[in-house]
Structure formats: C-alpha cells, structure tokens
C-alpha cells in the first residue's frame, strides 16, 4: 500500500505517494527527476548513490524513500558554489582531473561534504580511508586524492 511522505530535497519540499519498497535512489532519479545520484550496484558496495540525509553520508540504495519522511536529503544537484558555478570541492576535481567518466563522482562529492566540514585539513591517509567507501573504475584514485586536497584548501580560502 502506498504511503504519503514529505521530504525536503536540496531545500525544496516534495509531497509524494510512494510504495514502501521504493528505494531512495529510485525515488530521487525516477520520481523527482534528480538523476545526478548514480546507481552502480544496489547493494551498498560501490558508493555511487551516496547522498546526505540530515547531513550524514548514506547509501540511497539501502534506504527506502518512506524512511526519509520528514527528513532533509541533499544530492549532488544541490551543491552550492555561491557566486561560482562550482562548489570548491567540484572545482578541485575539475582542476586536478579527479574524474574521467564521472560515474563515481556524485557519490564521492557527497561523501566529502560532511567529511571536510568535520575535518577541514585531512591527511592523505584519512582521505584514502574515506574514499575506501567509493569505487572508481577509471582514475586509479591518485587524482581523486589530489582533487580532495585542493578542494579542502579552496574551502578554507573561501571561508577565510
């Protein structure tokens, strides 16, 4: 039986009627048309579908949309660059060639948002530990690590 949920996605409120079995990833992509959240494996392993729920990075393929009733969800579409077109972390990826096909990128960016809020100056080891939750088939990760380092610096410059 369908259930009605009210969920805020990137600051905008949606009221929808959904089947309980609808995954949050499918809700985002197919119900409200936000296809920036990618789906790679649907069992929590690849990290491509990572979004923020109440500012915590979680797998949207392992949550049912009904579970986000009354919560705030943030996806890659909501990354705010302020006056710039890109968020500083995205700028880091652009500048340092942190993506090739880009399939893994949204999940990595969303994992990085709370990570860099909490830890603005991460060591390389901490960055690699965080990235262990996201699979990238293209880059070999080295460029992603450099992109995160630059992104972290850009955030600090922006706020100082």
């Amino acid at each position, binding site marked *: *039986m369908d*259930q009605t949920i009210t969920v805020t996605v990137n600051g905008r409120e949606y009221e929808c009627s959904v*089947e*309980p*079995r609808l*995954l949050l990833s*499918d809700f985002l992509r197919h119900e409200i048309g936000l296809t920036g959240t990618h789906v790679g494996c*649907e*069992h*929590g392993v690849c*990290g491509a579908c*990572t979004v923020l729920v109440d500012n*915590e*990075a*979680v*797998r949207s*393929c*392992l*949550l*049912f949309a*009904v*579970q986000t009733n009354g919560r705030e969800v943030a996806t890659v579409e909501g990354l705010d660059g302020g006056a710039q077109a890109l968020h500083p972390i995205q700028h880091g990826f652009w500048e340092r060639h942190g993506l090739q096909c880009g399939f893994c990128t949204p999940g990595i960016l969303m*994992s990085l948002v709370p*990570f860099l809020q909490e830890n603005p100056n991460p060591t390389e080891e901490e960055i690699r*530990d*965080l990235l*262990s*939750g996201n699979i990238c088939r293209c880059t070999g990760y080295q460029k992603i690590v450099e992109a995160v380092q630059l992104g972290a610096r850009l955030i600090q410059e922006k706020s100082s």
Partner: protein
Amino acid sequence: MKPAAFDYFAPGTLDEALGLLADYGGDAKPLAGGQSLVPTMNFRLAQPAVLVDLNGIDELFFIREEDGGLRCGAMTRQRSVERSPLVQRISPLLYEAMPHIAHSQIRNRGTIGGSLAHADPAAELPVLAVALDARMYVRSVTDARWVAARDFYVGLFATAMLPDEMLVEVAFPALPPGSGWAFDEVARQHGNYAMCGAAAVVGLDGRGVVERARLVYLSVGEGPVEAEQAEALLVGEQPNAEAIRAAAETAATQDVDPVGDIHAGPAFRRHLSRVIAERVLTRAIERATEANRQ
C-alpha cells in the same frame, strides 16, 4: 534488482514493535540500519512480507555506563559507538575494532544490534561480543531474557532468538584489571569484509604468568570461532614469543577449519589465522604486561 513488495510499519515504541513481531511472526523482519537486510532484499534473497522499522524507537539508541561496564541500545549506530569516549574508556577493544567495520557511510546507518543479530560469520561485532563475554538482552511480548554471547550464536547467520524476539540491548562487562587486548584483521581492501580476523584478551597474574586467555576468530567458520585449544595452551605459561608461536600454531591447525570462497582459499585462511593470532596475542600480552606494571 528491486525488493519485493512488503508492508511497512514504523512504530514509535519498543512495545509496539514487539507487538507487530508477535502478530506477524516469521513473516516480519525488524529493519535496523538496513545495511545487510536491504542488499539481501534487493537481491531478493530475502522477501519479508512485513518490515518493522526500528529507526523511530528512541529508547533503543543509547550508550551508557552501568556497573562499570558498557550498555548499548540495539539501534545505536556503529558510527556512534566508534566515536564514543565512553566506549574508548570502558571497552577499548571494541573501540579499536570499530573502524574495521565497513566504510564510514555504512557505519552511519549500520547499528550495533543489527550486526549482532545478523550473525554474519565475517562480521567483527559478534566476535567482539564473544571475546568480551557480552550479554544480549532479548525480548518478545511475553518474555525477556539475557543470553550470553557464546550461547547467542548457533550457526551460519543464526542466533538463539525466535522470530518474535528482538535484540534490545547489549552489555559489555568491563575487562578485569590487568587485562591486555587486541584486534586485527586482513581484508583485500580496508572496509571490506575480512578474509580472517581475530580478537584477543589476555590476563596475567602477579608473577606475569598467563591466567586467562581469549582468542576468537571471524571468517573461519559458521560464526565466531573460539580457539579453545590455543587458549588452554597459553594459560599457565610465561607469555614469551615461543609460547605465543605455539598457541598461534595450535589455533591455526587444531582450532579452526576454514573453508574457501572467492576471496581466499582454505590454506590461505589457515595461514592468516596463524599470522593474525601471533599479532593479536603479542599485542594483548604487551598491553597486559604494561597494565600489570601500573
């Protein structure tokens, strides 16, 4: 793939949740962090007719000190356990092992109770529960009981809980004074399920002789595997490198009988059992020796 259809309930209290489990019996499953249940539903390996979502039950989220030990509500997120100063102080072994569980994005949702109840032979928490003599508080509408971690695990993905029962709380007693402890594992990639891992707890007497020893493995059997022969070999010994090597050898050849999978064959797992036993016993004994000096 997508999960099969189910009815969804999100009770606000434990009593309501237990009532739902009593009403629906084996057709219902509690939904904790969903980090093991939802993948199996997406694969349609599990097709529960009813999900009872525990995420809205505030009384199941807590970490507190009681009788010098640690008490955690079943729904306490793995991430909260990992970051708790109370856990660090009272149960340093648990604290040391938590970051080995999956990735931060998984631990943000995954719960201590969900992992303990899931009884995955490759999981860290069941092994820690056995090594630390934890006790599980299990409830149904009509019954409430404490089960020792050792008796809780009864086979592959199987626990002593009945379908209408729920794990409500877990108690980790404080380690006796003068104990040393260690955890280690080997995984293909940090955060993946380990190919082998072990927790050790060692206690020395006033003369530095081993008084108590615990060595419990993950990923080498159907559940947590206690290396009883290796433990017995260590007790009464001076804890030197030779005794540790002998215990590790016994553990790997007598106590465990690993099977292979796509990640590691039986011979490699046996090899890891020996190497990891040596590492964790050495570290635990170092810590016990240090604790005895103070």
